[in-house]
């Protein structure tokens, strides 16, 4: 049973990471592509980390909490880097898809 939960979590994480990367590949412009990786890091990596914490807590003698730190650092750094890239992209006026609604114009 335990193995089933773990495998489900790992697969879920892998799936969302894959979807994130796929988004990075197929979406048409920079701003839309930005959504792919920020998503993969939240649920995708989150599920993998929960699986890791569960596995090491139950299979070894000590409770493994390193994963909490990874989560915290990811949740702090991912939005900041996305924000910086978006800000830079607006500044150098990168191309956007024509149908983008834009109040800045």
């Amino acid at each position, binding site marked *: 049973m335990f193995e089933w939960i773990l495998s489900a979590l790992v697969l879920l994480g892998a799936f969302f990471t894959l979807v994130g990367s796929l988004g990075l590949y197929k979406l*048409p412009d920079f701003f839309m592509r930005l959504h792919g990786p920020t*998503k993969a890091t939240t*649920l995708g990596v989150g599920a993998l980390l929960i699986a890791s914490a569960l596995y090491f807590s139950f299979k070894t003698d000590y409770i493994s909490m390193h994963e909490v*730190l990874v989560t915290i650092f990811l949740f702090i750094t991912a*939005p900041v880097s*996305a924000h910086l890239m978006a*800000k830079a992209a607006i500044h150098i006026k990168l191309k956007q898809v024509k149908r983008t*609604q834009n109040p800045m114009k």
Partner: protein
Amino acid sequence: MNLFNKMFPHPVLTLVLWGIWLLLNNTLSAGHVVLGLVFAIFIPWLTSGFWPEKVRMKAPLTLLKFLLIVLWDILVANMAVAKLILGRNKNLKPGFFYIDLDIQTPLGISLLANTISLTPGTVSCDLTEDRKRLLVHALHIEDIPTVVKEIKERYEAPLKEVFTEC
């Protein structure tokens, strides 16, 4: 109280540092608890020059509830965005929009911007110079006023309650 303030110029920072030290060492042994506490007390002392304003939190329960709401939203929105990404590009309606901010504290604004970026489908892009409006990009947006209202009610209101200027 005065002595307490001198001992702990930034009580929240002290707690966070202590917690991170214990997590980094992955242990709760007495030695690391004490060593971590020593670091957690002295680092805020030595660096207090870099932290001109004090972080004040009110209503920690609201913060907890906010965190749970955000985690739930991340889960739900992730499914929605996965569907959008796997769907056809042509059907997506990307767009920029401004959110007029009620929240004024820098920490509150940065937490709000982080939350917006973390919940899939929206990325915060820019803050106007006067810190009054936040520019957000959405992957797919139909009705801007509804989304803005939802963000303001779900995320900004609790954050504003927790981090208010004293």
